[in-house]
């Protein structure tokens, strides 16, 4: 994706699934909710819409989380990453 096409309120969305990852071709609103982002990412994965990631009809991002990185001098656009969660705990459920 051409970074100049990503507006200040938009973000590039990177999705990791099944040992692969790729960026969604279209930018998404940076302030979208986690649920919205996961819904767009799931839809893209199922439809083969993430370049570099094989279409996954049963993709389910229920246990995934979103990392949000605002634009910086080095990275001139906002970025969102959908990745697996990694907490461990004895008691929390």
């Amino acid at each position, binding site marked *: 994706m051409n970074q100049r096409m990503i507006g200040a309120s938009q973000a590039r969305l990177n999705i990791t*699934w099944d040992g692969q990852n790729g960026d969604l071709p279209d930018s998404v609103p940076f302030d979208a909710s986690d649920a919205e982002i996961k819904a767009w990412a799931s839809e893209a994965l199922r439809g083969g819409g993430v370049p570099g990631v094989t279409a996954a009809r049963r993709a389910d991002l229920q246990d995934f989380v979103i990392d949000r990185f605002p634009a910086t001098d080095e990275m001139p656009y906002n970025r969102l990453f959908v990745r697996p969660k990694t*907490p461990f705990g*004895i*008691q929390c459920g």
Partner: protein
Amino acid sequence: MIEVAVVLDRQHRPLHWHEPPDADAAALPDSRDLWEALWAARAQLSGVAHSHLHRGRPAPSWTDLTTFAACEAGLGVRLSWWIVTLDDASCFTHRGPGRYDYTGRTAIDQETAAWIAELRRRSLRDHPAGGLETP
């Protein structure tokens, strides 16, 4: 006393110790750093171990089970998920049929015993009884 995790390679050797400052005795919080360590190691990864700071048979929490399933879905591989208590250890792997159906077994070889002792040592570091618990 804090929960600690360790990323293991296919020879059952530690690749990465995960001891974040925000961990406590009952939980290791979600961590992008841990995910990046898993992703970077994915070609040589066999599993992840973490400590439970109690005695007796290890059992994964719901948080643990959903993390196991999420990481395997993201990495595209099944892994071995060790849980080490103060006096026991088990390795959990996905057996199905459900997404969160993991079964434990215990088979501790010499390489495994070495990092289990180190995991307990790191987990008990600041505990008044630290060091007493390693069998």
